[in-house]
């Protein structure tokens, strides 16, 4: 097991180099003149000025020279201060948001995480539970309902469903609200009276025992949570159901029954652990989706997470920000794949021991 995890960990730097190479390479598809636009704020007065920018930032240097500079930054020859370098956490400066990209991540990611936290656990537990129930009662009433739901859930687009929710729960009676928090909460945070332990608003509210703030956070999050849940439940339900149906036909399930086990144990102890293997694989990509920013959902509900930041940056052609966020998402992908691999080994001895 430890051996297996170490091998996976050794792969992480390799993957990181791959991710950064690809993302940086995509930017290099633009010519030096086009990329010089990232550094000028005003219309250039003459062509010389552009050439100056290209020369100053070395935009026509060989690919790997630029890549290395991008990774490690540039040392100022006079002051010795380092500027740039994503290895040192400097993802560049976002001109559209007027702050460092790393600060965008620092302020926005906790919001995305807050939302993901309240989505992932119900998503995994309810989705799997429904899938197992449907498979065990194949072709019965609960299975029919589950199948209809899984088709509707996977085919109804988020922006339609989200708008429906806004119309029903916000536009008419303002039971639930878009955005992140009410003004009085943000004033409270700004004043410093409210201690931020984790920067996840709902969790901090609970830690401060401020249930009024917790309720306010929930009022703002409930619509995106419902939106994200209904899709993810449907996907989890579908995958769990089909995997479970397949497992229930396996010989070892008959063996378990022939030993005289109760049906409940046959399903929970023998069939379900085997049926979980494809579900765990999907769990990884679902969680990456939720953490890497749910662009449409956050935009529809005006929720200030990382997905909304990416959408804002993209709509204003802010390449530096997009680049930074893309690398951040790549990082999340690599980490969660690692977690999934370990989980996989944990449930499947064939992976763990071979």
């Amino acid at each position, binding site marked *: 097991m430890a051996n297996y995890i170490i091998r996976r960990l050794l792969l992480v730097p390799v993957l990181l180099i791959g991710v950064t190479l690809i993302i940086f390479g995509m930017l290099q598809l633009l010519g030096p003149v086009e990329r010089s636009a990232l550094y000028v704020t005003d219309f250039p007065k003459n062509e010389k000025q552009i050439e100056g920018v290209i020369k100053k930032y070395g935009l026509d240097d060989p690919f790997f020279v630029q890549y290395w500079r991008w990774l490690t930054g540039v040392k100022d020859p006079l002051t010795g201060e380092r500027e740039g370098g994503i290895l040192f956490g400097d993802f560049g400066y976002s001109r559209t948001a007027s702050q460092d990209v790393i600060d965008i991540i620092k302020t926005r990611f906790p919001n995305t995480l807050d939302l993901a936290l309240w989505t992932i656990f119900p998503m995994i537990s309810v989705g799997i539970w429904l899938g197992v129930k449907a498979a065990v009662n194949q072709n019965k009433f609960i299975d029919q309902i589950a199948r209809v739901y899984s088709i509707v859930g996977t085919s109804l687009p988020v922006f339609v469903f989200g708008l429906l929710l806004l119309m029903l729960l916000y536009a008419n009676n303002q039971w639930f609200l878009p955005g992140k928090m009410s003004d009085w909460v943000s004033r409270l945070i700004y004043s410093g009276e409210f201690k931020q332990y984790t920067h996840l608003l709902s969790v901090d509210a609970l830690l401060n025992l401020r249930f009024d703030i917790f309720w306010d956070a929930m009022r703002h999050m409930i619509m995106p949570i419902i939106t994200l849940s209904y899709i993810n439940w449907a996907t989890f339900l579908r995958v769990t159901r089909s995997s479970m149906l397949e497992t229930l036909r396996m*010989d070892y399930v008959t063996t378990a029954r022939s*030993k005289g086990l109760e049906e409940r144990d046959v399903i929970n102890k023998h069939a379900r652990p085997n049926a979980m293997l494809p579900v765990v694989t999907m769990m990884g990509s679902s969680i990456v989706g939720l953490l890497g920013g749910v662009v449409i959902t956050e935009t529809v509900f005006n929720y200030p997470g990382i997905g909304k930041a990416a959408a804002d940056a993209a709509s204003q052609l802010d390449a530096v920000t997009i680049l930074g966020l893309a690398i951040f998402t790549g990082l999340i992908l690599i980490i969660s794949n690692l977690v999934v691999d370990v989980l996989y080994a944990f449930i499947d001895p*064939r992976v763990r021991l071979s």
Partner: protein
Amino acid sequence: MTNRLLDVKGLETHFNTPEGIVHAVNGVSFTLDEGETLGIVGESGCGKSVTMLSCLRLVPMPPGKIVAGQANYKDRDLLAISEDEIRKVRGAHIGMIFQDPMTSLNPVMTIGKQLTEPLILHLGLTEKQARNRSIELLGIVGIPRASDRLKDYPHQYSGGMRQRVMIAMALACMPDILIADEPTTALDVTIQAQIVELVIQLREELGMSIVWITHDLGVVASIANRVAVMYAGFIIEEAPVKKLYAGPSHPYTVGLLNSLPQIQVQEKKRLYSINGMPPTLYKIPHACPFAPRCPWVIERCWSENPLLFPIGDSHKVACWVDIKTGRER
């Protein structure tokens, strides 16, 4: 008279498929006495496995359905008792091993866990007692270093070893009956012989009755006392093993025995095979199901399906023709 353990009467099992109802088992009756080994022989899809799975109600339902019949184990009808009661019979009184040892063990559970399950469930042993008993059982079926191998997973065992584990599991609670559903089919020939030998040895030691399902006539000859030959969901001949091999009385049995390859090869003789294909099972046959392939077929075969009737001491056959004379019985 010996004790009758299992008495199956008129068993009928159907499968509902999109193409129609498959009549897999069509009124099968047989008995099994204490200490006896019954071989059930037939080609793939003739209903031999479904017959035995039906007795324990292990046929997947739906699509399967046991339409009629009784399966009396001692004095209880296994087809009529409650789900809870039959669970107490499975594993405890009737154990079962299956065809493919590669797929019949749970891949994500240790051998030890799978082996102790029935012991804890039926015999009420503690975890520790069950563990000790499991080590004994693995020793009995011939797995070396048993105590080390309990924490291993099925994929760390070879095919033959897994079948040994299956046997240990089926016999864990000392059942009266062992149902072996083609247990050697998926194994190498040398391993097959070892497994057959192991079961014979265990039968001597433990004295259980065995129902051995197979399409291998050679294996049946070495292990069974009595043989039932199945075709298209019917038992078409039943006899003590020596009688069956010496004087097969159903044309199908004759065909099967003639299809066996001989070691002493005669000059330029092709291996015999029965003409035609077994029938599909979508319709209830009103004629003898073997009639289209039968060299002895007479008029009556096309209008009436013969039932199993005795033709001698414990020898039964379902055929209108006496194949020795070629005339109707």
